[in-house]
């Protein structure tokens, strides 16, 4: 174990390297670029024994990962924003093909106009593709989650791809200290990939040909079961990681000072880290506020949110995304899962930080104050000015 100080992107690249993928196919896009540069360097310096395919688009990056994963090897890619949107078709393909591909997505706003700053609309727009989605709040969490993700998705009860999200520039280009285990320890934690099916000339199969409604319907159902199964696996893997390496960021969610809370903040990504500071500050003023940080948006941590709402019926949900025409995705899904289950739950949705607008602990304190003072509506656009 050693401590390295590096940016979220280089830490993501290092984690991917230590997971030993055999094929990496990626295309550069701001603010993800340094991940693929990092990987390229590892491959060229023989620190990573992988084929690195410099594809001509993100659509091809995901297609190449699908081809490689279907041939039976571990794969990795990374993207952001428009790159992720271009991949959309193949994200569905990877999930329906049940291929355990792991990808980092550096959350970035979508144009026009061109905006390279943090915004979660890119990944939220992929929520129905069947991918597991994790949102990280520190570089350590990025490192741990990338390696954990392989163990989760390669489990035969899951076999779905996973997307690890980190905020553009907030984590991607910010250096933070990260505890890095020895390669040997990582190898013990993450054994080599054993595919459940592969393109094999000795056992020829045809994958993905015409399928009629009855069977297709079952495929969709099985994907849902796999997402449901992943809840348990995510918890087990997070626990195992904590035992082995000592770091822990929660599993589907991370609870922070929620036990006696009268108001609980729900947030994802780096806003979750900022919210911890806000909680500490507010508690110094005697107000009982806690944080339920959503690590896994897919599978959706329904039980955890319901459990929290039963203990504390005031939920302040911060969304760095907007499902235009409705509300923030986390707020909407939180409301939906509480409906008819926790009758007295009050959900206050806050849209904040779109297009990279800063969301500091001071802003979060102000949001809390609005709720406590009874001045928050169902949906607030915080900081419109």
């Amino acid at each position, binding site marked *: 174990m050693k401590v390295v100080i590096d940016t979220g992107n280089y830490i993501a690249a290092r984690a991917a390297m230590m997971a030993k993928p055999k094929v990496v196919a990626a295309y550069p896009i701001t603010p993800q670029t340094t991940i693929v540069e990092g990987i390229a360097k590892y491959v060229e310096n023989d620190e990573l024994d992988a084929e690195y395919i410099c594809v001509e688009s993100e659509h091809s990056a995901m297609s190449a990962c699908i081809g*490689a994963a279907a041939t039976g090897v571990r794969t990795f890619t990374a993207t952001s924003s428009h790159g992720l949107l271009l991949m959309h078709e193949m994200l569905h393909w990877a999930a329906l093909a049940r291929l355990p591909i792991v990808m980092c997505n550096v959350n970035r706003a979508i144009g026009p106009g061109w905006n390279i700053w943090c915004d979660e609309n890119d990944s939220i727009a992929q929520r129905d593709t069947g991918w597991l989605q994790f949102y990280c709040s520190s570089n350590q969490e990025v490192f741990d989650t990338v390696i954990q993700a392989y163990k989760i998705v390669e489990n035969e009860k899951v076999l779905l791809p996973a997307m690890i999200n980190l905020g553009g520039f907030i984590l991607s280009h910010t250096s933070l200290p990260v505890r890095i285990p020895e390669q040997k320890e990582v190898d013990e934690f993450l054994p080599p990939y054993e595919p459940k099916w592969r393109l094999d000339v000795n056992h020829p199969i045809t994958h993905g*040909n015409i399928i009629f409604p009855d069977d297709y319907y079952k495929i969709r159902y099985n994907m849902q079961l796999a997402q449901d199964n992943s809840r348990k696996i995510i918890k087990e893997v997070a626990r195992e990681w904590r035992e082995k390496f000592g770091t822990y960021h929660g599993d589907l969610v991370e609870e922070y000072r929620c036990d006696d809370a009268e108001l609980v903040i729900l947030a994802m990504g780096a806003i979750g880290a900022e919210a911890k500071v806000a909680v500490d500050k507010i508690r110094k003023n005697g107000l009982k506020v806690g944080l339920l940080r959503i690590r896994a948006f897919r599978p959706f941590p329904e039980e955890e949110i319901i459990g929290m709402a039963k203990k504390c019926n005031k939920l302040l949900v911060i969304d760095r995304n907007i499902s235009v025409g409705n509300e923030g995705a986390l707020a909407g899904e939180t409301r939906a899962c509480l409906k008819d289950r926790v009758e007295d739950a009050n959900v206050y949705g806050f849209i904040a930080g779109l297009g990279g607008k800063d969301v500091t602990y001071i802003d979060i304190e102000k949001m809390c104050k609005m709720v406590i003072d009874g001045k928050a509506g169902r949906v607030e656009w915080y900081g419109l000015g």
Partner: protein
Amino acid sequence: MAIKDFPIEEYVLPGNAACPGCPSTMGLRTVLKALGKKTILTIPACCTAVIQSWYPYTSFNVPTLNIAFEAAASAASGIAAALKKLGEEDINVVVWAGDGGTYDIGLQALSGAIERQTNFLYICYNNQIYSNTGIQRSGATPYAAWTTTTVKGKKEFRKDIGEIIIAHHVPYAATACVSYPEDLYNKVKKTMGIRGPKYIEILAPCPPGWRFSMDKTVEMGKLAVETGAWILYEYENGKLSFNGISKSIAEGKYKPKPVEDWLKLQGRFSHLFKPEKDIVRINAIKDHIRDTWEHYKKLASL
């Protein structure tokens, strides 16, 4: 190699869902006989996606990955990369795609895969239309041909994709035609000894798409070559050479048949002959064939 000496093994099995007289199935049968068992196919959206039969059945006896329309060449890049890491580079990585998936929606991925020197064989079976969706115009559709999206005949000439591929400086590119299985077989065999990206384009006369009788597929392909409307060539080590009847045409030893002989048999060109002969458009087709030949003769002399 003569047809009678082709391997007896079949990799395209009975029970497939091809139309009677389907050129794609004829071509793939020959291709897989040449490639043999150690082959992984990847197939984008195209007629063959349907022809292979439906889950849980398959009529293909080699591992096959179906992939999205524009993604075949990039999926093949992934397959080839994985095989390299697995130490299984003796396996043939093959894309089998239609002209829509090659000329149009798949061109970017194909160009990228070739530029990266992917060790694979890309085969385009060119029936000159989007046939699986019911006969729409593609970049490969010839001038004046009727399709459901060019009801009075296509206004543009087809894209010369062969030249686009050659411009990537590939180690091997060739054209073929389902009507000449020995030629196709030999060309596929030749690619197996070459590392890097290989491209073969097979003319595939489609009975429902071109509007001719389903027992005339072979004849229709032969006429395309005999009239000079389709040129058989190989591009190897930077050198282009003609094959078969195309070679005889180039050398002046075979006088091409009038192109009307080919056009008249196809319903998609019927508007060129009735109610009266459309001399202007027929001459435009003739001029285009002549110009194409002049151009290719120049390439061959380089």
